[in-house]
């Protein structure tokens, strides 16, 4: 009691003293405490952040400041701690006489992985000294900067033996997104060039009608300006056979993707996009900004996703053919104009699609006439599981054939993702195994990375070779290889597939693990 009386008296004396100062123009300014910034961040590399509370002047007396903290998606004790320690959402800082600031530390306990957010808000809530004022900013938000994930296990949602989904995977954020393969047929490039991609996942194919620019004039019976000299694979002899195509109707026979699909690689005629995924390799020629230079195309809409359940270990990915449409595409450089109609229609629909620079491509459905949300933002995916993948190309002894794969994987070459394969051993026909002098997946480190091996001009390095027909029919994961990937942000990862089948032996359940190289 005596002490209290003493303090009150002392305070009174001080007030008097300050009055005196004011009077003399030499009185101290108000003592106020505030944060330096309203927000700050804790970068991926930092594990602690020093947060300073500044004073308006040096403290003329000792005291304590109390700071309340609250975490958003961050919990004291598991995600962060402070020094000095806090309790029940509050920590106190001692202020000694003469100090102009105090600081405390925020300690990060767990790295925040890309794709999520977390922050801690500190608020000055009080002081021990009655005349201490709390200035502005009264609180500061410390957000944790996300870091690239250091490892992960991904089960891409290919979704079973019909492989109905295409899946995009981002390694640094351990995220995936999926969309049904049959929701779109064409995709328009959002970069500088005016390019049109086909949905190879749905076996979509397209053939240009040379010299034909009037979409309404095209029908099944249209006679081509010039007959096309093409090849097909004779299924009885497995030898290429010449075919001459003079009408649209004749062209339709060899337009769908299949071993016997028409083409002429020698003349550069291919009704699919190339396997490598280059801008130049699309079935559609580059769209010209001069309208009359853009011809009509016949688009084979690919095959429906079947819904029958095949035997365990088998797939059923291609159902009935979805028919044909005619399409003509124009561009002004910033948008695409799509003219499309049923093959034998005499009128057409038209849609304009603006380029969206946040994604590589904008997908479009010819059947619904609308754009479809398919790809994540350009930087937000490294690998794609198209699941089903088709193209026209050489295969084994075939000089040219329409090929369809399942369990397929490509990487985002157009989004500046590079990848290479590491082979650890090979077995020859006699079964003799040769081990290569390379580190195993477990041993592979940053020092082993060969920057020059990263492939940026072929998306199909992983392809379907990560799995192989098994000892007893159903596919198995090849254990002789793993992959090194460098994402657009410069993170290096090693990737290894662990499963192609579900635990019950059903196809269409891939799984892989990866680790960031340090």
């Amino acid at each position: 009691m005596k002490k209290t009386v003493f303090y009150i008296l002392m305070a009174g004396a001080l007030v008097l003293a300050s009055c005196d100062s004011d009077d003399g123009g030499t009185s101290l300014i108000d003592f106020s405490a505030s944060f330096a910034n309203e927000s700050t961040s804790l970068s991926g590399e930092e594990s602690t952040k020093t947060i300073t509370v500044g004073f308006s002047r040096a403290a003329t007396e000792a005291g304590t400041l109390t700071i309340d903290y609250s975490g958003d998606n961050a919990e004291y004790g598991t995600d962060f701690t402070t020094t000095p320690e806090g309790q029940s959402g509050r920590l106190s800082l001692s202020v000694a006489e003469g100090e102009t600031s105090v600081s405390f530390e925020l300690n990060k306990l767990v790295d925040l992985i890309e794709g999520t957010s977390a922050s801690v808000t500190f608020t000055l809530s009080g002081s021990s000294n009655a005349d201490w004022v709390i200035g502005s900013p009264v609180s500061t938000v410390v957000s944790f900067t996300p870091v690239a994930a250091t490892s992960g296990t991904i089960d891409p949602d290919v979704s079973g033996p019909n492989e109905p989904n295409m899946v995009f995977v981002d390694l640094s954020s351990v995220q995936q997104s999926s969309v049904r393969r049959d929701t779109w047929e064409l995709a328009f490039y959002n970069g500088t060039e005016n390019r049109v991609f086909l949905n190879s996942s749905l076996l979509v194919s397209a053939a240009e009608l040379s010299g034909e620019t009037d979409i309404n004039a095209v029908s099944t019976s249209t006679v081509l300006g010039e007959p096309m000299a093409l090849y097909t694979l004779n299924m009885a002899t497995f030898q290429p056979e010449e075919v001459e195509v003079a009408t649209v109707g004749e062209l339709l026979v060899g337009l769908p993707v299949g071993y016997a699909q028409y083409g002429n690689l020698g003349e550069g005629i291919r009704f699919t996009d190339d396997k490598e995924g280059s801008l130049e390799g699309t079935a559609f020629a580059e769209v010209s900004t001069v309208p009359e230079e853009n011809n009509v195309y016949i688009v084979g809409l690919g095959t429906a996703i079947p819904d029958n359940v095949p035997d365990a270990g088998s797939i059923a990915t291609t159902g009935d053919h979805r028919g044909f449409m005619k399409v003509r595409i124009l561009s002004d450089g910033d948008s695409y104009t799509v003219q499309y109609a049923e093959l034998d229609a005499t009128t057409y629909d038209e849609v304009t699609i603006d380029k969206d620079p946040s994604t590589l491509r904008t997908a479009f459905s010819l059947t619904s006439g609308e754009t479809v949300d398919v790809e994540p933002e350009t930087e937000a995916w490294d690998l794609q599981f198209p699941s089903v993948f088709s193209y026209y190309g050489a295969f084994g002894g075939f000089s040219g054939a329409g090929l369809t794969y399942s369990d397929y994987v490509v990487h985002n070459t157009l989004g500046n993702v590079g990848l290479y394969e590491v082979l650890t051993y090979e077995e020859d026909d006699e079964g003799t195994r040769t081990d290569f002098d390379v580190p195993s997946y477990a041993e592979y480190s940053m020092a082993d990375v060969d920057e020059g091996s990263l492939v940026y001009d072929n998306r199909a390095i992983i392809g379907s070779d990560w799995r192989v027909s098994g000892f007893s029919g159903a596919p198995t994961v090849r254990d002789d290889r793993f992959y090194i990937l460098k994402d657009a942000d410069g993170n290096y990862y090693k990737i290894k597939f662990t499963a192609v089948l579900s635990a019950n032996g059903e196809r269409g359940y891939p799984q892989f693990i990866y680790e960031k190289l340090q």
Partner: protein
Amino acid sequence: MACFRFSILLFLLLPLSVFAQSAESQKDSTGVTKLDEVVLVGESKVMSLSKKLFRVEVIGREQIRQLAGNTLADVLNQNLNITVMPDASTGRSTISMFGLDGQYVKILLDGIPLASDNGLGNDIDITQINLEDVERIEIVEGSMGVLYGDNAVAGVINIVSKRGVNDTKWSIRTSLQEESVGSEYSWFDQGRHIQNLRLDRRLGQDGQVSFGASRNDYGGFYNDYKGQDYVNIQDGTVVNDGLRGMEWSPKLQLTAFVDFRQKIKKHNLYFKSQYFDEDLAIYDHDVIGRLNANGEPNPTATDQQFDTHRWVNNLSLFGTLGSSATYNLALSYQDQKRYYKAYSYNILQKGIEAVTADRLNQSSKILYSKATISNIFERSEWFNLLLGYEFAHQKGFDAIASGAYSENLVENTLENYDLFASADLLLGKTISFYPGVRLTNNSQFGNRLIWSLSSTYDLGNRLKLKAILGSAFRAPNFEELFYYFVDSNHNVQGNQDLLPEDGISIFVDLDKKWAIGQGNGLFSTALKAYHFNIDDKIAFVADDSGDTPLFTYKNVDQQKILGFSINNGIRLKQLAFGLGATYLGEAITLDASQNTGNSDYVWSLGLNSNISYDLPKLKASLSAQLKYTGVSQTIATSDDDGVVLDRTDPFTWLDTSVHFDLTPNIDLTMGARNVLDVVTVKASDVSSGTHGTTGTDSRLFGNGRSYFLKLSYLLTFN
């Protein structure tokens, strides 16, 4: 190790034999004596005609005993003109006879064709035919289409059921057989364990009822594989090295039967009902190494189980009508079902994680009847006629033969109505002709004619010449008719418009016997030449006439087989010795209309020899059988560079055994199968690179050298 295990086995069996000994002394006190097995009622006449027309090889009880044969696959290995073709992936064994596969051979049980997976009598899995209840196996060589219908091209194998003893009211026979599988043996999980029981009860003077059961527990063959619970985990992930599972899958077979025989004056009735059950477990070589939510491997594998049930009900009536006409009537109802179960096996937790399929995937129901009547013309010296009909109604489906992806597992029905006649023309004492003809009406391909003409010429002095000329007629099988597998990359379909294969077969057989030494010594030699010319042979071909290329079956190939064999036998006192050789050539014209294939013969050599020697004082006999199968080549495909031959290396199969009559009621057989330890044989048509350990292209033929021991006990009393 194997020897050690065997000594344990012997030790374990010792008390049994002691028990048997005491049983014997008991029996002595009741005054029961050992009796030979004798035929109770008149033998079915089904095969007697065949013997007149064709050459019949018999594998008797004695030989089955020497080989300790429990299934047909155990004994047919040693036949000169038959090759057993085992398939490790399915556990099935089929046969090839005179170079023609199981489709061309008909297997009968007491003269009635046996239900197979998708047919009647042909392409039978011979490991499923139990021999405990079998008296002998008759192998009839030659085109038998007139008497046995379609698919009896290379010949017929008839399994004749055992009759009981008839002098005592009761007889009980039990036997135990223990066998190693290669060097693998353990009391429960490895090796082969067989138990048999048979009961006979005489009913009055002319009747008998029998019951029997046989259990065959085959533990499978591991070879280099490491079993169901094997997984290789390194650095936290599964290494799928393909070593899980087994080389040969384990299976458990149970065969049970009831037999009833009754003679009523000149008529005989025989009814047999046999039930067969087989559980086959197939462990996948692949391990699925998915990581669980905690990032730890949760290895699983998809294993399969096939459960086959077969129920055979055969009724035969035979006897004489009037003064001399003999008749034979057979009725049969058979039902075979195969259940399929697939499950995901959790290797670390050693249990089923989920059942992924559980369904009936094969079913066939067969109604069958056949009757013959002969000797209609009373006591004609030179002419005799046999008339008969055969009817078969098959209804069923088979998921395997219909294609794994097939959604239309439609039940299909095949019906056959056949009429046939065969005549004997005896022209003098030395020469006779047997012309025969069969009109077959099949619900799939309509009316067809099958014919044959045989002739015997007795040159005197125990020298006989036989010649058989006939159609080589094979009906298309279920798979060829109804297979269906269509998706984006495949279009494989059966062809319902297939016609039967037809052609000509010729057999010439020269037999000579000489008496040698004292007593009943005998030297015999048989020379044989045969030729098959099969037209319209069904082949798997590509058809690009439609919009989408199709793989299907068509009647386009032509196959020719030409073969010679010689068989010599000596029987002298306690010694019997046989030596045979066969030289077989095959020529296939692929797609005969275009003449693209080669028609040169490719030849292969086979040798066999057997020896047995009796030691009467020891009440023992020794035997050994050896068969050499030479390099075999088959024409696989032809391309621009000519014909491609698939080659299988030669291999030799040697079985040895010793048999003891320990007491009048107990006998013991022990021996070694596959003494030369054949497991795989190099073959060029087997794809390589899938097996982590062998590496080379080889076909599995055996389990390696195996040892067996069989103890039988017979108890008879009134």
